[in-house]
């Protein structure tokens, strides 16, 4: 699904701490627009920048990650 464009670098960015993630997949279910699953069940961040309309889902995905592996990084300077 196409995601609305905001100026590059102005949006918070999804980031995975790969040393924590073990592919439970909650983030994929909450944010299918931005996150897919790889061969082994680990998240593929298809687009790191979170558009405004998905901000709530992104924050929820970060909150419910059972491994505390999903992070939202501040917009790039």
């Amino acid at each position, binding site marked *: 699904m196409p995601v609305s464009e905001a100026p590059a670098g102005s949006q918070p960015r999804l980031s*995975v*701490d*790969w*040393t*924590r*993630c*073990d*592919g439970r997949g909650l983030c994929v279910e909450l944010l299918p627009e931005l996150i897919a699953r*790889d*061969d*082994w*069940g*680990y998240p*593929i961040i298809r687009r790191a920048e979170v558009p405004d309309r998905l901000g709530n889902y992104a924050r929820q995905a970060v909150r419910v990650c059972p491994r505390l592996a999903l992070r939202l*990084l501040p917009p790039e300077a």
Partner: protein
Amino acid sequence: MTTTTDPNATVPVRIASRSTGLPAPALAGDVVGGSHLRILAADQTRSAALPRLSTDQLIDLLRQAGLQGRGGAGFPAWRKLATVAATRRRPVLVANAAEGEPASAKDRVLLRQRPDLVLDGLSLLSGALQAREVYLYVGDADLLPGLQAELDARRAVRRDPVPVRLEVAPQLFLAGEESAAANWLSGGPVAPRTKPPLVLTSGVRGRPTLIHNVETLAHIALLARHGAGWFRQAGTRDEPGTMLMTVSGAVRRPAVLEVPVGTSIPEVIDLAGGATRRLSALLLGGYGGGWISAAAAATATTSRASLTPLGSSLGAGVVVAFPDDRCGLAETARLVAYLARESAGQCGPCLNGLPHLARLMQMLASGSATPAVLGELERVSGLVTGRGACRHPDGTARLIRSALLTFGDEAQLHLAGRCSARTTTPLLPVDQEHASCL
């Protein structure tokens, strides 16, 4: 791009072969002289007083010189210093000579021949930053007695503001990765950590930590004596200075050389005595670097500007000359199997993807692959790239992709059940304990 190729600016250092097949460090005295040598020169100023520089002066000096880290990543040295200084806390300093890359010997050669330069570089930084702790993190335990003697001699004349602690790095490919090294020095395993936070702001036991490759430190010591203008007399505008390179494989005199950055690859091969037979390819940058064809190498130089667009890497200065009687796919399969074993096993894509890639490469090498395996190698290489706490999967993917490009004709031959190689003896060293099962 400007290219400095003064043949006098080069030092071939002989490397004897060790039982492991790894290049061994040369003994002092093996240096063949030249008039423009820097790091590997027999320096008359060995015990000259060190200039005292403030952190700001050092940042300016490194910035003007344009010195980039010599450990593989090529990060601007001034930026690292500025970042650690901005924390306004007393940092930990680490001289990194873990040299986990099996095809590299330059850090060992440097520490054997010019430990004074490395320690002077550390001393300059530790004095300016008022470092809390200073480590010399060394992969080759054979170097310890010599280094301890050097440190004792320096202590007697109070040359180091902060005492330098020797630490032996474990024999692991990832031992030199910055966050893994910081973790090890904190008492943990060799396990890379997700960034941010950078090691520069939170490293050894949570302290700001400045980790430099030992060669970078040697350049800093020389820069403080001779200045940025002098430093820039060698190398290219964007990648100034000289660099150490480890040249091995099908060359007459495997060697650690010091050459200006931007030296042509054929000249580097010549300086190692020339090729012992026709080369099909070269592996540049190391096992996480990239293959380029001998034809592409003919016009390439030892610089990021030249090698990165070719899908290869300057890395920490590894050059392996690959002879045309060997199979590049079989060699790559061995290396990928090694790199998969050397994964820290923390990150899912690396933990799962690298063994999968190793199996696919082995199928291709052994002639049991279908054409779909080529596509799968590409796809999974893409899948692991950028998805780890460190760049280990990225480097492995680059090695595979560059092999598929460089040995594309050979891959087609293998799909047809043939191989053009006339010898199956492995060329590149991997870890000793696993060598028998390859």
